[in-house]
């Protein structure tokens, strides 16, 4: 390959040293790495809970832990994974790192607010960790009332405060992205020249900004009820426990789009780069992100089909839930069509992208099952739903995250990861994932309810299959941790654009300088014009 010119060049990693230079940084790239460390930690905490759950479920009896502990395990698994891993994951790491570069800016609009949002995640996470270490919370991540407000004897308040604080981290990230994308684009970077990654994060940011405050106020009401017994969710005092469900899901449904839209943005970039073709139907893919954000706010009642919500409300929410599926289908078709007459290579990021398409398709299709009122009555609150959302969040979002992490790894670190090990892990993740969660669809339709510590013996075989799959999946997740860390120190140096990708981030050094560009670019063509990147660029400037 080529000379390690990047090594001596000043970049965002070596321009200053010391703990203070990291903890007080205003550089979006360093903040992205701070986030990466934090969410990786929470991923392993959540994964530890998952391991205990799957081991317990090997047998129908509750022989590993007590029911009380088990209830805390699945609650804390959900809370950790959703609020402290998935919601921040792609936006706060890859989004933070790349959006300014992708639009040709020196940083986000509000760097200090960016740093503040990281601290808020850390503080919120510490509250939640404290609650977990002090004994945990056992309400389920959904905190349904009146159990969470009146009956649970666990650390509800500390956990709710932790999520409340972390919510503001999410809101501020969204606010920063919206203002940045509106006001900081380089000359010539019109909206329809933006990479689809940016469109996806814009739509995500709109959801973060509009939805998360409702979660915040819902948590405040839960706290007030728990502390002062004001009666808002207590039927004995005239309150309505189902009102909580409406308020909770008004945020928590759009929240799942916060988790998947950025992943879809990553996939657009990967499919395009490794086909060397513009994404088919660019405008439709961009528009579908916005459509998902809008429709995503209109479907929360599909979590309440059997809650005593009115039949007519159920009809409306079921219809709209089908409507929101269509933009996702549009994306899958357009990604597939991009391969047609492309020039396709099979580096690790592309393997993750293929895995995403497969698993997201299955997960999304099973969404059609639960959107159907007649089916949902049978499968809601069973393992069918558990399988559905894990296909999207793990099979979808986490695979996209890993794919993106590998793709932009050379840009972030200046080093390449070991391709062989990476491909192997991708395969292990794909197999392990399906082994874990496909049996759960069958379990769910059979009638196995969720959040069950003990279960009837006829369900055991499927549970054993699921746990076996989970052990394989765990290996698949551990491997990248090891080889990515190894590669940061020992991996071969990477040039500015090892994949001959389009995108402004590839026009600067790997790792980039402090302010991203030595000279701010002027944009003259669309996002995916591969005729402009025919040579592998080995050095910049």
């Amino acid at each position, binding site marked *: 390959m080529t000379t390690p010119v990047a090594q001596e060049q000043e970049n965002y990693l070596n321009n200053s040293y010391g703990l203070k230079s990291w903890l007080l940084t205003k550089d979006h790239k360093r903040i992205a790495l701070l986030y990466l460390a934090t969410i990786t930690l929470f991923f392993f905490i959540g994964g530890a809970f998952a391991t205990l759950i799957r081991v317990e479920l090997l047998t129908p009896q509750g022989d590993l832990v007590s029911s009380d502990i088990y209830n805390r395990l699945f609650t804390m698994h959900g809370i950790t994974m959703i609020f402290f891993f998935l919601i921040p994951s792609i936006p706060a790491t890859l989004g933070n790192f790349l959006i300014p570069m992708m639009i040709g800016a020196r940083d986000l609009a509000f760097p200090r607010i960016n740093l503040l949002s990281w601290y808020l995640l850390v503080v919120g996470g510490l509250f939640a960790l404290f609650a977990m270490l002090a004994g945990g919370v056992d309400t389920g991540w959904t905190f349904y009332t009146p159990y969470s407000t009146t009956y649970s004897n666990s650390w509800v308040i500390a956990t709710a405060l932790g999520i409340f604080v972390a919510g503001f981290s999410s809101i501020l990230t969204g606010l920063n992205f919206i203002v940045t994308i509106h006001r900081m684009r380089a000359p010539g970077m019109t909206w329809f020249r933006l990479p689809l990654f940016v469109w996806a994060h814009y739509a995500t940011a709109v959801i973060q900004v509009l939805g998360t405050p409702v979660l915040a106020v819902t948590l405040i*009401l839960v706290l007030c009820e728990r502390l002062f017994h004001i009666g808002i969710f207590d039927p004995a005092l005239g309150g309505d426990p189902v009102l909580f469900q409406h308020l909770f899901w008004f945020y928590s449904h759009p929240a799942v789009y916060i988790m998947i839209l950025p992943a879809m943005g990553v996939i657009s970039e990967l499919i395009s780069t490794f086909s060397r073709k513009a994404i088919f139907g660019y405008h439709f893919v961009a528009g579908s992100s916005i459509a998902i954000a809008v429709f995503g706010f209109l479907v929360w009642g599909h979590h309440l089909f059997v809650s005593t919500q009115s039949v007519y409300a159920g009809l409306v929410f079921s219809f709209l839930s089908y409507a929101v599926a269509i933009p996702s289908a549009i994306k899958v078709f357009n990604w597939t069509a991009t391969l047609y007459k492309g020039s396709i290579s099979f580096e690790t990021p592309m393997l993750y992208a293929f895995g995403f398409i497969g698993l997201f398709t299955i997960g999304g299709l099973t969404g059609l099952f639960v959107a159907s009122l007649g089916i949902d009555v049978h499968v809601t609150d069973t393992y069918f739903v558990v399988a559905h959302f894990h296909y999207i969040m793990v099979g979808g979002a986490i695979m996209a995250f890993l794919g993106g992490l590998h793709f932009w790894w050379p840009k972030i670190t200046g080093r390449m990861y070991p391709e062989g090990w990476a491909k192997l892990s991708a395969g292990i993740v794909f197999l392990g994932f399906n082994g874990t969660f496909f049996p759960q669809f069958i379990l769910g339709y059979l009638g196995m309810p969720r959040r069950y510590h003990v279960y009837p013996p006829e369900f055991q075989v499927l549970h054993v299959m699921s746990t076996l799959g989970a052990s394989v999946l765990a290996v698949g997740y551990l491997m990248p941790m090891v080889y990515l860390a190894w590669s940061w120190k020992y991996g071969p140096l990477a040039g500015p654009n090892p994949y001959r990708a389009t995108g402004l981030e590839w026009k600067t050094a790997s790792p980039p300088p402090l302010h991203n560009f030595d000279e701010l670019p002027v944009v003259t063509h669309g996002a995916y014009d591969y005729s402009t990147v025919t040579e592998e660029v080995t050095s910049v400037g």
Partner: protein
Amino acid sequence: MADHAHAASPALQVQFDTAEQQKDASTLGMWVFLITEVMFFGGMFLAYIVYRAAYPDIFALASSSLNVYIGAANTAVLLCSSFTMVLGVRAAQLGQKKALAINIVLTMLLGFVFLGVKAFEWREKFIEHHVPGPSFHFAGAAMQGPAQLFFSLYFAMTGLHALHMVIGAGIMTWLLINSIRGKYSAEYMTPVDIGGLYWHFVDIIWIFLFPLFYLIDRHLK
């Protein structure tokens, strides 16, 4: 190229190319933030709507225990504070540093008057046992639960509003200090601008809270 702009205007942050871009970004940022605040208060407004629809008579009865004259006076105080805020923004636009400082001080004073009156009202509620909790009792309501709900929403929403006013007072203090130090001019008064936006927003929240809590008993009179 960008360096010239930065040298000429020390308030220009490094990520922006021009002062105008910075002003646009800051203003858009404040508007987006205020939208999140609408959603934040919106959740509680929804809870209010749901329970008032369920218990209209008890809510009206509970509302009659709030002093509408004090509430109206407080509303006028807050409206005046928004007026002085506007005068302050105008002063900043014209580079009138002294007028800016004076108007910020007046805005803060009116804000403190509002908070003081609120504290007085809350104390009254404590004395009358209208504070939700073990010692809650609302004489005249057949069902205590919904009456307690009214007052829970009253304290939660006016309390959240008061918290935002306290934060607003902090923002005003910071603006006052900076304006005295001469940091603002006709060319650069963005913080005053967006501080004003925040203050007006908090005012508007009160404009909704006042009728919903104080004026829904008119048909009983």
